[in-house]
Structures are given as C-alpha cells and as structure tokens.
C-alpha cells in the first residue's frame, strides 16, 4: 500500500536538517524508539517499544540507505524492514523523504510503499492508514517542539514518556546521522504495528 503525506515544521530546512542528523533527537521524536544502532556504513538496526492500552510491544527493525540528496531539496531514499515475531508479521517500506523550504518553515513530505506481511497484513488497510496518520502527527509535533524551544501549537495528542522536549544543539551532518533521518520518518509507520496491538 502506498502512503504519502506532508507536514510542516516551524523552522528552516537548514535548521531541521541537522536536527534530523542527531540520533538522540530522533530517538526522542520517534514515538517509542528505544534503540538505534549503526551496523555499517549504510545499515542500521533499532528497536521500537510502545505501550498501548496496557500492552507492551517491541519490534526490531533495520534500515538501509539507498541514496541521499543534499541540495535545496534534501532527499533520502531508504528501505526499512521491521518484524514483530510474536505477531508473526513483517513490514517492508520503500521510503522517500524530502525536506524543502516553505517561507520560514520547512515542509517535510514522504512517500512510502509499504508491504505488511503476516497476521497483521490481513487486518487491512484502513487501520494502518489511520494509525500512520496518528503517529505522523505525533512525530511532527515532537519534531516541531524540538525545533522550537518556545511553546508550539499542535500539542501531541498522546505523548510518550520520552516526550520531554530537549534542546538540541545542531551538529554537522554525518552519514550516520542522515540515515537516522529516514528512520525517523518511516518509523512513524512501523509504530503502526504497535498501535494495532490494541487490536481494535
């Protein structure tokens, strides 16, 4: 299934982009992200933990970067894979994320071609689409908060325990950090897995 969306972050791409490259920041912005680990130049592994309706959920994932464009429009393509062994399900996402300027803000847009295989796959599209919207909103709000230490509108609807907003010093982009940016956006979708555990 194809998912695409766009959200605004109240900071310029040059501010947002470095933020993406900070693994600590990303970990805080991704709902439920507990680990991010670099395996080699282009492969990363992480763990997403979430608790919804009192059910704790944990899914491993990996990310492999395919290309990075760092010009006016900054873009990253990557393949993400996640797996929930208990639910007998796996997910694969071909993702493209772009950041471009929009006045004083940045527009972040993503396109994903997501395959969801196994038990969760047969629960169908509506739930996934809906959950991905929720997680995206949460991620966008946290990201906005991370960009702007001042109070922001658009309070996250259901913040996780790690939602305390850090003030992050931008650091120069590194190859490692770039990968994390993609992980961030796309993990929002993997978090869908967590949401579904509630089973409604």
């Amino acid at each position, binding site marked *: 299934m194809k998912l695409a969306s766009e959200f605004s972050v109240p900071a310029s791409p040059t501010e947002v982009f470095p933020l993406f490259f900070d693994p600590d920041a990303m970990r805080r912005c991704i709902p439920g992200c507990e680990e991010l680990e670099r395996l080699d130049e282009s492969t990363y592994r992480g763990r997403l933990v979430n608790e919804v309706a009192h059910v704790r959920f944990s899914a491993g994932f990996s990310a492999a970067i395919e290309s990075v464009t760092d010009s006016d429009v900054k873009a990253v393509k990557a393949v993400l894979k996640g797996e929930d062994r208990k*639910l007998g399900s796996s997910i694969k996402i071909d993702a493209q994320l772009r950041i471009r300027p929009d006045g004083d803000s940045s527009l972040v847009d993503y396109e994903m071609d997501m395959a969801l295989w196994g038990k969760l796959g*047969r629960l169908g599209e509506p739930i996934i*689409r*809906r959950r991905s919207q*929720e997680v995206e909103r949460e991620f966008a709000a946290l990201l906005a908060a991370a960009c702007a230490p001042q109070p922001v509108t658009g309070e996250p609807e259901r913040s996780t325990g790690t939602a305390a907003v850090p003030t992050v010093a931008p650091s120069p982009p590194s190859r490692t950090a770039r990968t994390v940016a993609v992980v961030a956006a796309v993990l929002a979708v993997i978090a869908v897995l967590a949401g579904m555990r509630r089973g409604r």
Partner: protein
Amino acid sequence: MMSTVDNPMVYGGGTAIQILIKQGILFADNFVDLAGIPGLTEITADAAGLRAGPMVTARGMETDDRVRRVAPLASTAYRHVANPRVRNTASIGGNLAHGDYRLDPPPALLALDATVEATSVRGTRSLPVRQFFVDFQQTALAPDELVTAVRIPAQPTGSAYRFVKYSSLSANDWPCASVAVLIAGREVHIGLGALAPVPRYASFDATGMTDQAAVDAALEVIAPLLDPIPDVRGSVRYKRRLAQVIVEDAVRGAWKDLDNA
C-alpha cells in the same frame, strides 16, 4: 475491581473481543466479565426517554416495545447491526466502547443526543454521545471507566426519522456508509457512520425550508465532516459520493414523513 486488575479488558457481549483474540492480535488476559453483574440488562422508560443498561443486547433494543415507541430511530438502527444472532449477544455498552467508526447504532445515538453514563471508583459521570467518540476507535472513556447506562431522550412527537445503511459489496456486509436523520421541531440532526474515522454528527435549523433546501443544507453541513478511510469497500472518492446519496435519501425520506404526518 477495574483498578486492581492488571491489563483489564471489559467483556460485555464479547462478540468483538472474541474476534480479535482469534485473529491473534488481542492478548488481554484479565477480562472483567459484566455478565455476572446484576442490573445491567434493564431498560426503563419515562416521559423524558429511555435508560438502558450496558448489557442490554442490540436485539433487545431492536425488539423492546418501549424503545420502539419512545425512540424508534434507535430501535431501527439496532436492527441493522450485523444479523439477529450477533444482535442477540452484542451488548450496547460494548458496541459504544468499541468505538468503531462503522457501527450502526452510533449515528442514531448522535442524532438522538443520547448520553453515556460512565462509572469508575471516582464516581459516575454523564458523557454526551456527541462528545464520546474522540478518535479512531478511541472514546472519551477513561481506562478504568465502564459504560453503566445509555440514556436516550424520547423522540419528540411530530418528529420524523430515517436510518439508511448502504453496503457496497454483498448485501449483508459491513456498511460502506450509514446515516441517521432525525427531524424534530424543524431542527435536522444527522449522524454519520463509516464516513470518517469516528461517527460524526451535524445539525441545522430547517425553519422555512423546502425539502430541496433541507437536502442542500444537509449536504453542506456534512461536507466538512467527511473523512472516509479507503478500503475494499470503496475509495475516499466513492464514499464521499455515497455519503451525499444516502444523506439526501434519508433527509428526503424523513421530510416526506413530516409532510405526511
């Protein structure tokens, strides 16, 4: 009890919960079974309306004479739930707490301005159904709250109503779109099902309107509420279109009854 159990799941009729357990995606292991608690299956009626316990079945609401008399729109909507066998078991409290966007009763309860009575160790509070559905399968119930009653105001004399459920595939499938319309005292109340992540409500004053004007007004007030989820039953575009068709049908139908009354 709800506050002492780890990972509780309230078990009403159980029809929805059992399905999720079977699909291997629900692991709640502490069911709080309401079947053993007395007094939750009663329906009472007075001049103001109905009060139904959470364990009243959908079938009970469909067939109860008082419901048919006092709130025929509710009775009609409950009659459209799944099939008679499921209605025999499905509880009205569970149906509401499930919070699913496609269920049949919520549109009717929205149009009728029903109230949910929610109880926890902290006490009992009333939640208007119009504020009950918060987000996709999310309700305003706190985790430790139970639905302990549903109150439905009596349909005013001289009111008219319609419930239209439309399935796009086999005829007894889930709704692709559903609508409840109640016209009472020239106020038109509209409840929508399956057309957004939550059941939605809209109303407008139809004083002085012709039937066509009322239809136009109805289409106008529902337009911003439509946010359908695409699935095998239809795309966003198709569901939006269907919404217009069934809302027009329902408003026109109810209007006609009003004229004939």
